């Protein structure tokens, strides 16, 4: 009789083997992700990981136009002065600054103890190099070049004193120069050695974190700058950062990113969807901080050149027919606040008078439409001379919100045809004027952002993609905007800005809907996260576990 021979590879052995491999593989990969955070022997060795919702194309502050790339850039680069979320300026790479008498130049006295990550000393030459290269067409700057305004030149008066000159007074000068992701200072040595394209992939700045590696579409890794001693006074921390490694993990899908936070694979989560905010707030291990973004809120721009919105009464009726506090609460679960003006309350120059204009008043909307000849039909849609009151709405940013708006304006007899478009289609329709209403929102810290939707030279045309989608061109409005842009005196500027805000709302050019919210989810173990100016990006210098 043949004895029972144990098969060489029994099922049990196989299962054990598979389990062992999976376990080993699993611990290795989870291990090197979560790293030493929270469990790190010295908290100083910890890694803090940010989950980013958008991919990167460049890490050069002189080239970028993306508020997502900004998140990485502002940890590694610094500007001449620091603008906090409370609107106050303080010294950063420059110790003090002074306007010239004609308002066309500012002289900066620079710190002497600053070094770039590659050891190059920071001085006036680096400042001049940075700004001159921004305006050089060969660089292909997409954001900084416009931010520098009517830039003329930079004079290096002595190694630690520079004077920046503009062709005319530029009111946004200090605000823009404080921007740490557009007008921050780059290492001339590194740019000369690597070339512009190389520098974009291996950036060198003066910030609290220095660049280590960038795996495209996966992660950016930064490490503490051990030589860092020049943090702005607003930060609690002094000297090098309290943790070692800062990783940015790119996770475009919202639910995956949120799941990664819950699992602990990231420590801080960018752009938490409103519906998930509640699941993290008030829990033991997590919290959410919500930024009310500065600049232009999510707003509707109404085409004054296309029927039926070419009639002021129709535009105003539209604005009276929508209950902003209610819709915002419904669509965003209370995470975003309603907006009433073309710039948000956290933007300098905000005129609170906008909150009294266009309160929800469906009766008034109805009477305006009656006055304009649009009589209510039996099917609930108004009509004039047999033609129904149809408004063509193109949405790219927030289709859910616009569907709620569609339901709201139906109550007063407006048929809102909401078309969900791709960026390419939106551009085509906008340039050719084939729309009634479109969406806009803009993250900005300076009220000169109002030029974007309201300057007459920004009216789109075929081949020319600009943002004056109300297509309203008035020399009076242009004058007011130019005046505000050149007005160095804050009080006078605020007065002009107030007039502009009233002007555009009265004429039904723009209907503000809600302030953009930037909910940041994080593990409670991570302390001292801080919003950068504008309330979109987060600064990690103060942070620790």
């Amino acid at each position, binding site marked *: 009789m043949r004895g029972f021979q144990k098969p060489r590879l029994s099922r049990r052995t196989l299962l054990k083997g598979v389990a062992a491999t999976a376990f080993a593989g699993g611990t290795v*990969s989870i291990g090197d992700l979560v790293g030493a955070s929270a469990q790190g022997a010295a908290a100083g060795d910890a890694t803090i990981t940010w989950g980013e919702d958008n991919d990167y194309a460049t890490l050069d502050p002189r080239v970028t136009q993306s508020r997502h790339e900004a998140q990485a850039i502002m940890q590694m680069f610094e500007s001449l002065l620091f603008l906090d979320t409370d609107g106050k300026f303080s010294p950063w790479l420059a110790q003090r600054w002074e306007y010239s008498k004609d308002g066309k130049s500012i002289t900066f006295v620079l710190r002497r103890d600053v070094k770039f990550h590659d050891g190059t000393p920071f001085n006036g030459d680096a400042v001049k190099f940075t700004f001159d290269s921004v305006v050089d067409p060969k660089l292909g*700057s997409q954001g900084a*070049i416009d931010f520098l305004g009517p830039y003329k030149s930079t004079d290096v008066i002595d190694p630690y004193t520079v004077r920046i000159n503009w062709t005319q007074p530029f009111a946004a000068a200090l605000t823009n120069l404080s921007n740490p992701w557009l007008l921050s200072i780059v290492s001339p040595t590194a740019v000369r050695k690597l070339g512009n394209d190389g520098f974009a*992939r291996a950036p060198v700045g003066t910030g609290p974190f220095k660049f280590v590696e960038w795996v495209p*579409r996966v992660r950016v890794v930064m490490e503490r700058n051990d030589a860092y001693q020049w943090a702005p006074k607003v930060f609690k921390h002094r000297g090098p950062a309290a943790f070692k490694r800062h990783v940015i993990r790119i996770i475009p899908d919202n639910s995956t990113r949120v*799941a990664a936070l819950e*699992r602990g*694979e990231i420590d801080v989560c960018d752009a938490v969807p409103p519906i998930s905010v509640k699941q993290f707030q008030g829990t033991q291990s997590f919290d959410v901080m919500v930024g009310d973004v500065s600049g232009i809120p999510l707003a509707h721009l109404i085409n004054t050149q296309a029927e039926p919105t070419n009639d002021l009464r129709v535009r105003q009726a539209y604005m009276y027919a929508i209950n902003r506090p209610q819709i915002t609460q419904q669509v965003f679960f209370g995470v975003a606040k309603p907006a009433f003006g073309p710039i948000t309350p956290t933007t300098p120059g905000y005129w609170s008078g906008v909150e009294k204009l266009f309160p929800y008043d469906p009766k008034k909307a109805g009477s305006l439409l009656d006055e304009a000849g649009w009589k209510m039909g039996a099917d609930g849609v108004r009509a004039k001379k047999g033609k129904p009151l149809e408004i063509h709405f193109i949405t790219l940013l927030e289709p859910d919100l616009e569907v709620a708006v569609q339901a709201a304006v139906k109550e007063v007899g407006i048929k809102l045809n909401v078309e969900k478009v791709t960026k*390419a289609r939106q*551009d085509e329709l906008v340039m050719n004027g084939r729309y009634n209403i479109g969406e806009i929102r803009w993250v900005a810290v300076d009220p000169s952002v109002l030029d974007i939707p309201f300057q007459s030279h920004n009216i789109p045309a075929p081949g020319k993609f600009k943002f004056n989608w109300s297509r309203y061109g008035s020399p009076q409005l242009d004058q007011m905007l130019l005046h505000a842009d050149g007005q160095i005196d804050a009080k006078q500027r605020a007065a002009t800005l107030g007039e502009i805000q009233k002007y555009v709302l009265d004429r039904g050019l723009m209907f503000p809907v809600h302030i953009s919210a930037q909910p940041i989810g994080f593990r409670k173990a991570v302390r001292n996260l801080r919003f950068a100016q504008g309330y979109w990006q987060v600064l990690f210098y103060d942070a620790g576990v």
Partner: protein
Amino acid sequence: MATYLLRRLLWTVPILFAATTCAFLILRLIPGDPVNLMLAGRPASEKVRDNLRAKLGLNRSLPEQYAYFVVRAVRGDFGQSFLTGQPVSQVIGQQLPASLQLAGGGIILGVTGGLVLGIAAGLYPNTLIDAGAMTAALVGISMPGYWTAMLLIYLFGLRLQWVPIVGSGLVALILPSVVFGSYAVGNLARLVRSSILDVRNEDYIRTARAKGLPERRVVLRHALRNALFPVVTMMGLLLGLFIGGGVITETVFARQGVGALLVNAIANKDYPVVQALILLTTTAYVFANFFVDIVYIFLDPRVRYG
């Protein structure tokens, strides 16, 4: 037959040429300006836009752009990405390994799963096993990858914590491979099942049964070999699909890969990257089908070409 195969091989050149030319033309004909899309609609001044157009060579005429493209492509130089300025070959080279890994994982799981389910259903038709296998196949074909991915992440990543969600390494490849291979599993299972059922009634099968062989041996040894023909054809198709079709899986699992790269490049009208990727995908399809034809030669002694 050698001449036939050689002719097939030579045909690949005009096919690839035609595909990339089509891509070149279509990209430039659909509305949307790459410079504008790259600037993400920022209110960049005319100065900025013109600078960018010149930098990308878009201010040249269409025939000129085409000439530049062809001359460089023949040398293997596909230009630089509009978005990042990196050489296109480098951009694709960085993303390709992850796609191949995912394709490999998807094919292994897909083929294994498809064969197992299909054979089980073929062996025991019209039983609970058959019904179960075919339902699983239907689910694999019909469920959107996005939904399957979310469910799997929730169950195995969050609740059970058996695998990482956005990790690296072999373990992190499991869930994406399941999602990626689910379409193949479904298709193959149904195909294998019907092939086996078709073949079961053939004369040579009856002979095998008459010889007294157990049913399982009949199916696995004799029927399966012949049932594999349509399967091999389908695998050729799936192989091509695998290279470019991973965008949803790659996006949801935050993985590198040419699928998401392609979709992103199209949306941003990153012409050089799109053209190179279409060339890559076409090459994959052409050679996959060529490979299938060769496999047939070994599988079926009756096959003679030319």
